[in-house]
C-alpha cells in the first residue's frame, strides 16, 4: 500500500454542505434480504420495527425493500454524487443494522480512501501570506552580492 500506488484525496465537503442548509447526501437505500434464511434474521427484525421510523425521519432518502432469494443480505446505499456503497449485513442484529444505516446516512458520498490532510481551509492566511518582501521594507535597499575584499 504505497501512497503513490493507492488513490488519495483531500478533505472536502460536498459543495460546502452545512454552511447553509444541510442536505442529506444519501439518495437511495436498497435493502436486499431473504425471507426465509437465517442470515437475514436481523434484517427482517429491522424491517418489522425500524425501517418505517427511519424513512419518516429521513424524508430525503428513498428506501427500497426487496426480498429475494439470496444467500447474503445486503444494504446498497447510493449517494448524490453517484457513488454506490454496499454493506453486507449477514447475521447482524437489528441494533447493529440500525447503526450501520445511521453511519451510511451521515456519510457524504465521497470516496473512502486515504485523506492527505485531516484539515482543509479555503483561507489559510489571514494576515497575508509571507512573500520575500513582507519583512523587508524598501528602506533596506536592494539585495546585492556580499562585497568580499580579497
Amino acid at each position: 500500500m504505497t501512497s503513490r500506488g493507492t488513490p488519495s484525496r483531500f478533505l472536502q465537503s460536498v459543495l460546502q454542505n452545512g454552511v447553509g442548509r444541510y442536505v442529506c447526501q444519501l439518495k437511495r437505500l436498497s435493502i436486499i434480504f431473504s425471507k426465509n434464511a437465517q442470515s437475514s434474521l436481523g434484517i427482517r427484525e429491522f424491517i418489522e420495527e425500524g425501517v418505517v421510523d427511519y424513512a419518516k425521519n429521513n424524508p430525503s432518502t428513498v428506501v427500497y425493500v426487496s426480498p429475494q432469494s439470496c444467500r447474503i443480505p445486503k444494504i446498497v446505499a447510493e449517494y448524490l454524487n453517484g457513488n454506490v456503497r454496499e454493506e453486507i449485513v449477514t447475521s447482524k442484529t437489528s441494533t447493529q443494522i440500525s447503526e450501520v444505516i445511521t453511519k451510511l446516512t451521515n456519510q457524504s458520498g465521497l470516496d473512502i480512501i486515504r485523506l492527505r490532510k485531516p484539515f482543509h481551509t479555503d483561507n489559510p492566511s489571514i494576515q497575508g501570506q509571507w512573500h520575500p518582501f513582507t519583512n523587508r521594507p524598501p528602506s533596506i535597499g536592494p539585495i546585492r552580492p556580499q562585497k568580499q575584499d580579497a
Partner: protein
Amino acid sequence: MVFLSLSSWIRSRGPDRYWKVQEIIKHAKHFRGRKNRCYTLAVKAVRRAFVYATKGRRLKKRNMRTLWISRIAAASREHGMKYPVLMHNLTKTSVQLNRRVISDLAITEPRSFLSLAKVARARQQEGFRAALGDGKEPAGIFSRVVLLQ
C-alpha cells in the same frame, strides 16, 4: 476415430490465478518497464515498494520536523534571532506551540510570528538581566510562569 476421453483429461489447476496475479500487479501499475506487467518481476518490485513505504513512514516524521525547523530558523533570522534562542525562550515563557504550528504561523501569519519573536527576545533580555544583574531588580514579566490548575 472419436476421442471421447480427451475432455476428461483436462484439469482446472486452480481457477483463481488471474485474481491472485491482479492483486499483486494492481500495486505495480505505475512502475516502469516490465515490472508493471510481468508477475515474477512485479512480485519483487512490489515487495520492495512496500518495504520502502514502511521505512518511509518513519523517515517522513523526521523529514517533516527538519523542514519545520529550517523554516522557523529562516523566519527568525529575518527578525534578527536564531532558532535555538527562539525555541528556548518560547519554552521558558511556557508557550507550548510545536514546530509545525510555529512554521505554519511563520508562513501564513507573519505578524503573529513577529510577536512570538518579540516575546522570546524580551524573555532573553530578562534572562540576561537576572544573570548579569545583582538580584536587586525584580524578575521580569515574562519570567513569571503561571500554573493554572
